[in-house]
């Protein structure tokens, strides 16, 4: 199985959207502020639906919010 890490640009995108708070983003996508913080820090991978909702809030395609990088296999 290929292994990789998911990163995201949520912090930057929040900044560009009038310094939107984590609580406000959470409210708009139906999760708690703590869950937004965990997603932002890369400690929790959201469901595909939540990821699409986040992208929708920023009016961007999914791949401009979330990135997946495959780990180099030795």
């Amino acid at each position: 199985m290929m292994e990789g890490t998911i990163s995201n640009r949520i912090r930057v995108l929040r900044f560009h959207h009038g310094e939107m708070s984590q609580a406000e983003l959470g409210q708009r996508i139906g999760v708690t502020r703590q869950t937004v913080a965990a997603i932002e820090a890369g400690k929790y991978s959201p469901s595909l639906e939540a990821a699409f909702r986040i992208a929708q809030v920023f009016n961007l395609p999914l791949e401009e919010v979330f990135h997946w990088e495959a780990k180099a296999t030795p």
Partner: protein
Amino acid sequence: MPYREKTAWLSLIAMAAAFGPYFAIVAMRSLPGALPDLRQLGLLAVAAILQMLILGAGHLFLRRGSPQDARTPPDERDRAIMRRSISSAYYVLIAGMILVGCVMPFSSSGWSIVNAALVMIVAAEVVHYGVVVLSYRRQA
């Protein structure tokens, strides 16, 4: 700290406060063979009531501290953590009940079976709430 992590801590504390002393007392005293053992039954009732009181007071306190969080339904991360914790606790409970079933034919005291089952139920609950706390800590 998320509201659901606080309630998990509360459940762990209530269990430790109620069943810690209960199991300590039970371990120290010799089990009588005759039934019903009303002293033992009273001890169990005290532990159960104490746990309910701590949980009731604790939930009231937490709800007053953050009423908005208390009203918020669990989101997908909360539900994922709940699923993981319940499945972990399930294995502990099943293994525990099998162990109790193995001990049962060799025990003449009804209370030793009851207490063995109680230990396993409490262990499963500790795993349940322990996994909840650990999951929230890891993702904090």
